[in-house]
């Protein structure tokens, strides 16, 4: 009997230990970001956000160009990805038994697990390869935005679908009984009812693509200049971390930590907002 108790205690201890093993690297990463990255930001609090990267040895420099590039890339990606994902998601919820809705659900579940680097490759092959490139024949920022949009579409679609499925059927019937058209029912009654849920969907999608680097490296390549044209490579925060982190230069490494801190804050902020909206979702009925 006491042997049993001993074994219980041992296993319980191991379970708690595993939680600790999960927490330690997180604490370590946050510590490095805050201490090493924070120190760099504090040493150049304005320059860091407004200046462009400086060659190693020159000293100083910031990530202003990467912030700008990321904003452009994510902005265009949202512009493409949100409407497409949202409209597909609405269909998946409102015509849930139709073959297309079922297929879309199945494909989405595969796509959310799809290697993002492959999305980059396909985008490259179609949009900017030397053979097929229509707008550019080489790495280009718009291709990165397109790849990011493709990555977020299934995520947005699935979350919007979930949001619409929370609407009680009586609301739909009420709308149709008033003689509203499908279009009016969807956009004037149902969509306003789940505004918060749709916001959550967009934020979840944004959080997912904001940290992506592989598809950007593949489609857009690497740039350490200001954003110039959609058909040229543009800088971005994740790729800057990648390049600076792999460099042997101490000041670049410090900036990589600082940029990581900014990126983490950004993504956690978006995640926090998403949770706020989730809580606000659907107070009625």
């Amino acid at each position, binding site marked *: 009997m006491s042997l049993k108790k001993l074994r219980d205690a041992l296993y319980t201890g191991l379970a708690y230990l595993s939680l600790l093993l999960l927490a330690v690297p997180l604490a370590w990463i946050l510590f490095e970001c805050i201490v090493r990255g924070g120190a760099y930001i504090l040493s150049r609090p304005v320059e860091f956000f407004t200046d462009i990267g400086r060659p190693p040895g020159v000293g100083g420099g910031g990530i202003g160009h990467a912030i700008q590039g990321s904003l452009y890339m994510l902005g265009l990606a949202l512009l493409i990805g949100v409407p497409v994902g949202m409209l597909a998601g609405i269909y998946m919820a409102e015509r849930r038994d139709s073959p297309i809705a079922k297929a879309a659900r199945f494909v989405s579940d595969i796509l959310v697990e799809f290697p993002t680097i*492959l999305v980059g490759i396909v985008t490259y092959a179609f949009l900017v390869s030397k053979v097929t490139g229509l707008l550019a024949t080489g790495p280009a920022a718009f291709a990165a935005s397109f790849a990011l949009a493709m990555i977020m579409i299934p995520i947005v679609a699935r979350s919007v679908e979930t949001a619409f499925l929370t609407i009680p059927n009586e609301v739909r019937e009420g709308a149709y009984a008033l003689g509203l058209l499908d279009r009016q029912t969807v956009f004037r009654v149902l969509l306003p009812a789940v505004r918060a849920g749709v916001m959550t969907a967009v934020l979840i999608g944004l959080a997912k693509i904001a940290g992506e680097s*592989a598809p950007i490296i593949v489609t857009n390549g690497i740039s350490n200049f200001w954003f110039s044209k959609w058909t040229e490579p543009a800088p971005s925060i994740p790729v800057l971390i990648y390049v600076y982190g792999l460099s042997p230069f101490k000041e670049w*490494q410090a900036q990589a930590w600082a940029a990581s801190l900014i990126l983490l804050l950004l993504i956690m902020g978006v995640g926090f907002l998403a949770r706020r909206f989730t809580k606000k979702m659907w107070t009625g009925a």
Partner: protein
Amino acid sequence: MAAMRKSIFILLGGFALFLVLILPFYLFGELYGASEFLSKFSFLDFILGREWSLPEQRYGALQAIYGTLITAGLALLIAAPISIASAVAMSELLPERVSDRLGVLIDTIAAIPSVVVGLWGVLSLGPFLSNTLYRFLVENLGFLPIFQATMLTAYNKLTAALVLGYMIMPFAVSVIKENLRLVPMEIKEAAYALGFTRWEVVRITLSYVKPGIFAALMLALGRAVAEAVAVSMVIGNTCSFSVSLLEPACTLTTLIINNFAEATGTEAAALIGLGLVLFAISTSIVLVSRLVYSKLLGGYMR
């Protein structure tokens, strides 16, 4: 009887159809991109080709496949016990309030971009391990082939597996936790009624959701296979068939990410070919996981 009317759903259905077509579009894009290469070399020679060498224009995928399987597999081996134990601790042992707080911790880990985990691997974890654990392993367990190293390095298969393992853990934990939540209270009550201790009850609970755990770990494996940036930062990027975990390697994704931007012609097509292999491995992992999971949902768990 109902008159046909133009409905907004025709338009919405178009978007849903577009979503459906993305997957075949990806497959077509991969095949199309690799077509130049496939017209020159046989796909079988490509997959079984033992060497990847740019100067000699040799494009064999086997080393990369080996690197992918060994790092992803090892990552899963590391992540699985920790994930299962953590999920059990959170859903079975700790009070809900504490468990909810820990849920935020798990979400936070999941939210770290892979490039930041990679940065930590390059600048913190790798150098730390090479001076401690790796030195110890080489000096004391160096007689084992898996711990032999001609040179002590921070960037090798083990570092890659540790970084990958950490990246897939939060996902595995939350899916396993979801599964455990689905276990009906009656099952646990029945076990307690038989006089089982807490851990015996946990074992019953775990066996109840075994297919769900398997599906979750498969998906986690798929994520490890698909990861590119973080691995490429810590694996050393030297293709080889070395058995030692402390030697560098390359994977399907690292070859692509390191070379794609500058690649042209046959090399670019060969890299897209690697993508095709990744496509096949990754999609089949997801499909197997889905299959197991839908079987679970169709079986005793509803």
